[in-house]
């Protein structure tokens, strides 16, 4: 590009500017058509009048977010919204969502479901939306509690820990040495889960024969996690199982086990993405692992929005609403709704998930 410009001089520069403008225009058109096609106006049948819900994720084009929003659309249709759409920034910066919120306020959207990039940066804009009559549902990543009506959270940290200890115990037959292969040594999420796991292993009599012999850190790096998995095998010849509460770690360990002599002899479980873990579940390296289902998050958010807008709940502690096929959900202290529990994936159900 640079060289071309130099050679062609002025006309070249003009040409490239035209090209850039054209590309930008195309990109904008693509964005518009993207939002347009995501608007779903085909289901007024549920009797919700002409209520509209808009999802504002942290950023567009994120594979994980796409799954959440897919669930959100499904929920919006089932809950009876006349239309649902997704708008949002391409980059997850603190203030990038504000203009989208303002646009929704002007459009008179009834429910705004938002995953905040910054808990405070969106507050003023959300305040205006609320005074114009909109209900605010935060999902995935909370705003300041004063700025929304309700917050839909994935799972309880303790549940995430307990499902993993339960799975490993089942897979190693309730006794033997286990190890944990985590992300970085100071990862907040993982350390919280590990703390609960250690407490559970120590206090639950069902786990009295399970001994946690090592905690190692693969830094969420494929190569490093790989070598840590090797090291665990050599350092602990009697190891029966590994828990890896991080998607990178479990996949790297699974790859190592499946290509080594330890395949089928050492159990592995933890938190993983179905798409990444599919081959290892199919080839028998991993029996079962867990993760929350991101689609359920969007699904529950849509139903919560509907219940708020219809005045069935206010977001106060103790309120309950029905979230379609997932059944009843209760609002806890601080306007918190837990989607949980984590989903367990195995050879039977893994093909139903695509994320």
């Amino acid at each position, binding site marked *: 590009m640079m060289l071309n410009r130099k050679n062609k001089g002025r006309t070249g520069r003009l040409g490239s500017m035209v090209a850039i403008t054209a590309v930008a225009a195309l990109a904008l058109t693509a964005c518009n058509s993207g939002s347009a096609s995501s608007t779903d106006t085909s289901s007024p049948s549920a009797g919700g009048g002409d209520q509209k819900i808009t999802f504002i994720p942290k950023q567009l*084009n*994120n*594979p*994980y977010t796409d799954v959440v929003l897919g669930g959100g659309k499904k929920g919006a249709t089932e809950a009876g919204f006349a239309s649902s759409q997704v708008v949002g920034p391409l980059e997850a910066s603190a203030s990038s969502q504000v203009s989208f919120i303002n646009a929704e306020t002007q459009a008179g959207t009834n429910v705004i479901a938002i995953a905040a990039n910054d808990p405070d940066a969106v507050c003023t804009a959300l305040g205006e939306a609320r005074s114009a009559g909109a209900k605010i549902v935060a999902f995935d990543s909370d705003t300041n509690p004063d700025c929304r009506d309700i917050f839909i959270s994935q799972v309880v940290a303790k549940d995430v820990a307990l499902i993993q200890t339960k799975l490993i115990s089942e897979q190693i037959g309730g006794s033997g040495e286990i190890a944990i292969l985590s992300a970085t040594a100071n990862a907040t999420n993982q350390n919280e889960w590990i703390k609960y796991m250690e407490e559970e292993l120590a206090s639950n009599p069902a786990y009295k024969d399970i001994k946690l012999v*090592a905690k*190692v*850190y693969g830094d969420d790096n*494929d*190569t490093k996690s*790989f*070598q*840590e998995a*090797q*090291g*665990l*095998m*050599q*350092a602990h*010849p009697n190891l029966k199982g590994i828990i890896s509460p991080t998607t*990178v770690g479990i*996949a*790297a360990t*699974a*790859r190592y086990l499946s*290509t*080594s*002599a*330890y395949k089928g002899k050492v159990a592995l479980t933890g938190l993983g993405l179905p*798409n*990444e873990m*599919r*081959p*290892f579940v199919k080839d028998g390296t991993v029996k079962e692992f867990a993760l929350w289902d991101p689609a359920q998050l969007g699904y529950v958010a849509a139903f919560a929005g509907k219940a708020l807008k219809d005045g069935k709940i206010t977001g106060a502690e103790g309120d309950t609403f029905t979230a379609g096929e997932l059944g009843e959900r209760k609002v806890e202290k601080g306007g918190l709704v837990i989607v949980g529990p984590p989903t367990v994936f195995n050879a039977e159900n893994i093909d139903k998930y695509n994320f």
Partner: protein
Amino acid sequence: MSSALDHKNATTPAPDAGARGAVASLLRMRELPVLIALALLVLVTYLINPLFLTAQGVKDLLLNATIIMILAVGQTLLIITRNIDLSVGSMLGLVAFGTGSLFSAMPDVPIIAVFVIGMAFGALLGAVNGALVTLAKVPALVITLGTLYVYRGLNNAWAGGKQYFAGDRPEEFGALSVNTFLGFPVITLLAIVVVIAVAIYMSGTRPGRDLYAIGSDPDAATAFGIKVSKRVFLAFLANGALAGLAGVLYASRFNSVGATTGTGMELTVVAAAVVGGVAIFGGSGSVTGAALGAVLLTTITSSLTALRVDKFWQQAIVGVLILTAIIIDRVASLRTAKKLRISEARNV
């Protein structure tokens, strides 16, 4: 010219060869300290934890070294000419992700074609580095620091949040880094072939010797009629092709390739070359040494883990090794310089 080579390149046998000369030249080999350190490391680890050398353990050690070994060979070509390529991690990442994309777009593409395409892609990236360094006459350190970020940025833009997993690639491709031949993993054998081929090229051919001459004294090399720019450009190109090969092998061995694949690898590669006795000021060292350095570095990580040493010590130990290698190098070159002064004084 040739005397300049001799005193820098200590592997050249002494003129008064004999049994004693052979032993002496063996002792002066740059690779020897690395070899001894490696042997000691493996032995001590094995005595404390016999599991270290089970069939699976040996296979793991070799596999761990393979990719860094290939990258260290490429890097050595450049360091010998007083250049460096810091963008190898980013090049490897781009090629690894490219390999994933290729298999996803064309699942039936022949594996040999993937290797050819990967190496050609790497060579192209290396050629960009080479062209910038030789045309702009800016130190390679700066240029390749720039392309480190440029290539990583391209990888980010191309991959986004997308990752390709081992399951997306054909089983025979992944099997390359699982199957063994005479106890050696297939991809390790490939790396050994690369090391031997480049080692012969470097010590036995005119262009190979030219690279040493360029690194010893670029001005003298120019005066002697060596096409410095062309040789340096080709060295960058070759390094790119090797990084491409390493990228394809990475995709074969590891589970996921994505936007961050290979981040930070360049430092391990330069460290491997330096530990293997390749002088950072150019003109001296061998690809065999660099390959041994790569094996030593990756083996340290494995053995410290097998010995249950706190992994936070590992980096410190690697640092001490690098410093030791540099000090040995310095002492050796001072001694050779002194000897040469004495012998030349006698000849006069």
